[in-house]
């Protein structure tokens, strides 16, 4: 697949010789796909995005977009659009003028501008809003205007900086799906910054988890969720419990009374596994190998959350069987699914 964005060994220091915000990272966003930069605040993901946009320039390394070195080009010279967290709609222009701004700057004729603005507004479902003002629209509508304003220039690369963080939960899911649908329909190359892992899982072709200015792990959503390579990634991609295990020479993993074979070639000896709370199967006492006592039980509508005492330690378990609630003090037993368990290098 052709690369849309290429980052080659980029570092960034805001103060010359000062601490590095980004410490030598490299990655590729294939053309027509969506890559999410995920990480806690201060990990360098927004800096990375702003370097793609051309709003910051890297201290060293190269940035390529569509097979062209753009490292020294300014934001205006790159064929890139950015949707801002705050939307950054110009308050003194109506919706039409906001969306038309980039075209007007480029000197596109009036008829063509009108046509393209209307097409862009139609794409985001805001036909007929041309003469409204940014202040008159809801947050979700403003978000769409910002999107239309970015799309109207038909950029080679579209960037999103935490686009959903100012929306309420319901709207967030809707906009998330719309952005993903739009990206797939228009075959856009997108880089997307968020700190919300469920958002990242939902929209991405590729997720890059960043930590402290470096890439912690990159891969498909399933890779990262099911096969995290570190405690940090496992913890960041959702709830996960770290447990010490023994691995035998034959590739068998042993956790207390539980045993399973691993397909990966891992060196024998002590290791750690990250276990998702939904990786456990809950049964009556003695039904499964690992005996457990319920300490705490919480009803959450679609599922139960249990805190359990076992011989391998205290476990946090999510159980989808809503027909039967286990109460504190009850004796139960546990087995493990193969999914949701990953072995971490010790």
């Amino acid at each position, binding site marked *: 697949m052709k690369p849309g964005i290429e980052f080659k060994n980029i570092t960034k220091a805001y103060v010359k010789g000062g601490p590095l915000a980004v410490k030598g990272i490299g990655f590729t966003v294939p053309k027509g796909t969506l890559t999410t930069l995920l990480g806690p605040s201060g990990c360098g993901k927004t800096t990375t995005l702003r370097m793609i946009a051309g709003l910051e320039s890297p201290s060293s390394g190269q940035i390529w977009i569509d097979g062209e070195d753009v490292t020294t080009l300014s934001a205006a010279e790159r064929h890139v659009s*950015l949707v801002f967290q705050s939307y*950054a709609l110009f308050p003194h222009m109506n919706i039409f003028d906001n969306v038309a701004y980039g075209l007007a700057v480029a000197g596109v004729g009036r008829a063509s501008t009108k046509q393209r603005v209307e097409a862009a507004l139609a794409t985001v479902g805001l036909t007929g809003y041309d003469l409204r003002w940014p202040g008159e629209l809801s*947050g979700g509508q403003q978000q769409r205007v910002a999107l239309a304003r970015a799309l109207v220039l038909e950029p080679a690369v579209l960037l999103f900086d935490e686009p959903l963080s100012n929306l309420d939960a319901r709207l967030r899911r809707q906009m998330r799906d719309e952005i993903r649908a739009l990206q797939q329909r228009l075959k856009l190359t997108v880089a997307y910054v968020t700190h919300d892992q469920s958002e990242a899982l939902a929209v991405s072709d590729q997720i890059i988890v960043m930590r402290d200015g470096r890439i912690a792990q990159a891969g498909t959503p399933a890779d990262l969720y099911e096969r995290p390579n570190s405690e940090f990634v496992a913890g960041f991609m959702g709830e996960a419990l770290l447990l010490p295990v023994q691995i035998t020479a034959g590739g068998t993993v042993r956790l207390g009374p539980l045993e399973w074979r691993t397909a990966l070639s891992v060196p024998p000896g002590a290791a750690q596994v990250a276990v998702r709370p939904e990786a456990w199967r809950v049964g009556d006492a003695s039904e499964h190998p690992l005996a457990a006592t319920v300490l705490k039980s919480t009803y959450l509508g679609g599922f139960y959350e249990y805190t359990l005492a076992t011989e391998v330690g205290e476990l946090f378990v999510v159980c989808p069987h809503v027909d039967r609630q286990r109460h504190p003090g009850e004796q139960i037993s546990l087995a493990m699914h193969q999914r949701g368990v990953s072995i971490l290098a010790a």
Partner: protein
Amino acid sequence: MKQSNLYGGAASGWTLLAILASLLLPWYGLPDDFHWMQDYGTVFRGSGAANGWVQAADYARPWLWLPVLAPLVAGFAILCEQRRSQGLLLLVSAGTGLAGLLLAGYAIGVQGWAWGSLQQGPLALAVGQPGLGWGGTVVLLSMLMLVGVGLARLGYFQGNEFVSGAVLLCSALLILFIAMPVLKSLAGAFLDEGGQFSAAEAWNRLASSRVWNLGCFSGRPTCGVAWNTLGLALATATGTTVLGTLLALLTERSLVRAKPLVRVLSILPIVTPPFVVGLGLILLFGRAGLVNQLLEQWFGIEPSRWFYSAKGVWLAQMIAFTPVAYLMMRSVTQAVAPTLEEAAQTLRAKPMHAFMTVTLPLLGPGLANAFLVGFIESMGDFGNPIVVGGQFAVLSTEIFFAIVGAQLDPGRAASLALVLSAFALTVFALQRIALGKASYTSMSGKGDNGIPPPLPAPVRRLGMGLAMPWLAFTGVIYLFAFAGGFVKVWGRDFGLTLAHFQTGFGLDWQDGIVWAGAGWHSLWTTLRLAGSAAPLTALLGLLIAYLLARVKFRGQNVFEFGALLAFAVPGTVLGVAYVMAFNVPPFELTGTGLIIMLCFVFRNLPVSIRAGSAAFKQIDKSLDEASAMLGASTLTTLRRAILPLLRPALVASLVYSFVRAMTTVSSVIFLVSAENELATTFIIGRVGNGEYGVALAYCTVLTVMMLGATGLIQWLVGERKLGRRAQAGHQKINETTPPVAPQAIPALASQT
């Protein structure tokens, strides 16, 4: 999309401009009898008005080849393929031209080499050169901008040509019109009459007993001028801070109804010439003033000039500067979070105790700032000491008399200016420190639902007893000042008359209007110069504010320091500096209207920078970035996205620059000539002749005009252009803060 940028745009534009200017415009300053229409042909022939090429070839001024050839070389850069090599060629060619132009400009004067010894040697030049004219100036500017383009192409300033050009231009202007003149004039303190460096002479002047004696403590009438200045400043700063704070507390906490009245009185010192208060006081306490008249009538006391002294100046400054302290303390008082005071009360503190332990400490940094601003105001004040000072001399008046008086001793003026600048810089540094300390106040109004408690009774009584009579007194003084223009001869004949207005602004009809009044000439000159200075001030100020607020570049700290320094230079010092620095080539401006205009611009620049900085703080940076992402250049972004949002600030700084240029006196009094007489200097002249009626009539006319101008701005700005649309939405424009102008007023007022 990249290519178009390489060939078009700034580089070729400035190159073309430089080439055209060196061919089509007279290189040097024009002879007095030059008429553009009739004599334009002489630009291409040998004459004083010849262009750069002719000057270099026919007039044996070979040093001009560098600047006239450099643009041609720069022209080749456009043919370069690569961004870097293009930048390098531009930088080298334009840089060489620029350096050559400036070096030759400073090294070669009217008589040849600027250093006499060289001119006597074998290298003696046949001809010297006068100051730069249109051609030279335009080429200079173009070269500077081409250097900027070159630097940007080489990757400095993040490759942004606009930013690099703006930084170079602003730095060059700050250096040329503030740093260099001031340093040059201050260096004069170390030169003896022959122009040679002399430490002994400098020591004599600086340590002179006229400056530093403490005679007033041992029976002599006055101390040295330095002590006079410091003492007066101390007294004024203390008094204005106390009164201003009391007024602010009263109007914000107890006597809310008095607010509009206090507000009107607080605007007056901004719109009136600085010495109006002094004139009003003279009408009351002067030799022919009401008080002396009554004393004579009732007690037979002979009228004397007792008022013309330190106490008179102090009283005048108190009236003139208390409103400044009030405006500053008002915003500080408003920013104290009421919940803190409520918290103190719920913790069982009595009102007075809560005031002393919570409110007052919270006001602390504000108080320090108000005190220091009062100090700076008093030190820089020229109008009041000259009008009511009498024998009491302060540094600013002493500098004036050293330059224009019978003494004519520039070295002495320079050393006095040095002392004054040292004082001002020290206080300015203290103020920075006071402001830099964490100010406890000013949490945003958000989430604070408290109601400010009323003032404790003792504080309220003090305020009512002290501040209210003061307010009345101020009102009376201004009233007197305006009434003075309508009275025949104050003190002798109180009959009403319009004769003074007739003298100043009479009109005759003789085949059309004849501007017969004596004041017309100076009024038109002032209007013309202030009117042309105001837009320049506003634009340059906004540009500098933009560079400070929005752009990051290497050397920004130095740039910021330079811009800040402009705040600290007292007006008198700047005026002296202009006289001393711009009377020789390459920038020969003395006696022209241009130098007065430039003085207006750079004197009022800090005000404009402050207004701009405040405005930029209210506009979210993502709007700039959004525009850049959509393909707009920095200039387009400024013009289409930012400037419309800055309009209130722009209008505000435009009108205030205008008003302050109209009413300023300290800096321009050195620069006026018979041809370019200004309103304020005209009035001072009338006062000197004892024509108080005409002076006051003129003041009234000025004040009415300036009130009109400020009224206009309040009206324009008050009507917020964004209207409710901005308020309804989620824009990052901070809605809780009031529009720019009212905020800017304390900042504006604090720089007289």
